[in-house]
């Protein structure tokens, strides 16, 4: 199965012999056949990162759990929802989680403001377990690369990216919160994403 997946990767001309991605796609192929072990493989590998992302956006642990459960339920129910032409499995998974989290934030904006006080507790909980999970999941190199790419961004671009992606804010909300003109927010988002795209291309794991 793995060899077949690698062949498929080559034939798709993805420009990557990314073994990690090959493994993900192999798991997804098995998952389409209802293989529970394949699901657990994908879940164990990415659910903790998905939880971190959801928690960062919605800022409430129980909502983050629900989002992760919904997202992976959708994967389990319809693994064919993944389109290899649109990117890697891990980006698809995180995109699914992020979309749900941002949707929730937009719908629950008023509620979110009421529970702002809960944020420090949520992050303490995250910090307590992070190290052991990093080791268990085995994605430290990926994290190092992405963090390095983010750190290389000019502060003003990183700020816009983080407010949009990690806080679930629209470009208009970023402009309002920072006092930066909307057009500037848009151009900083574009420039920041161009840099991230360049930094991450060619070093996909």
């Amino acid at each position, binding site marked *: 199965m793995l060899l077949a997946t690698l062949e498929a990767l080559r034939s798709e001309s993805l420009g990557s012999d990314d073994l990690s991605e090959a493994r993900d796609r192999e798991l997804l192929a098995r998952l389409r056949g209802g293989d529970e072990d394949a699901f657990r493989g994908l*879940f164990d590998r990415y*659910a903790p990162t998905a*939880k971190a992302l959801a*928690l960062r956006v919605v800022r409430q642990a129980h909502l983050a759990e*629900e989002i992760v459960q919904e997202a992976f339920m959708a994967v389990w129910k319809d693994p064919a929802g993944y389109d290899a032409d649109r990117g890697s499995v891990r980006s698809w998974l995180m995109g699914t989680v992020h979309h749900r989290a941002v949707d929730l934030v937009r719908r629950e904006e008023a509620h979110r403001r009421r529970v702002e006080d809960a944020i420090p507790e949520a992050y303490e909980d995250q910090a307590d377990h992070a190290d052991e999970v990093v080791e268990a999941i085995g994605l430290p190199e990926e994290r190092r690369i992405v*963090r390095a790419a983010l750190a290389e961004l000019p502060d003003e671009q990183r700020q816009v990216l983080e407010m949009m992606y990690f806080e679930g804010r*629209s470009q208009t909300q970023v402009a309002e919160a920072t006092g930066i003109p909307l057009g500037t927010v848009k151009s900083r988002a574009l420039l920041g994403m161009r840099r991230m795209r360049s930094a991450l291309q060619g070093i996909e794991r």
Partner: protein
Amino acid sequence: MNHERVEEWLAGRALGGLNEADAAALEAEMAAHGDCAKCRRLERELTEAAGRLAFALDPVPVDPGMADRILAARVVAPVAPTALEASPRGAPHDEVAERRRSRGTYTFVGVAAGIALVAVVAATALRPGGRTTMVTAQPAQTIVRFQGDAGHLAMAYTPGESGVIFWGSDLPDPGADRVYEIWMIQGGTPVSGGCLTPAPGGNLAAFVDAEVGTTDLMAVTVEPADCPSAPTGEPVLTAPLDVA
């Protein structure tokens, strides 16, 4: 087409922060432009970069039972259509059997949001002890907890609408070639709501395409795997629907 403008919109969308007006403008531009290889490449690369941002975060442990719960959603055994269609009782065309067959048609828990909702509410409803409890989960939605010695089972439905979600835990293995069958009893007449098989460990989550209607008692029996159209055993779980 102004690709720089499109790229700016795509970057905003990949980050989840595109304003509604810009989202509409992007859709219109893409539709007007037709199939564009450069647009697709930009979209793919920006979406990929955005998805990778998540890995800047330290992972956070998830509920260790979550994977089991998700897997249980598809472990539910569908009513075998061949067995039903074979009309084991010999009726060539039985409208009642036809209706039962329809009710026994399972859809694996398809609405993830619904499951998540029920998971939260059912976690409360499934607490052991006490008598049957009914609580309103959402406007017009009702949660019912079954009574009995066969683990914990709850159901959620909206009165007047088709569709019931069942959520259970600690359900004993019904045995080889045996299943749990749901019965909706109205005026002493049981109508099958279909058959369920819990996951190893006793968890269960299933959506049943049936309408509770004016049912006054829900019951669960252990039945042969062919899911008979009339109960053959005593109820192991019951839930009076005494909504006043």
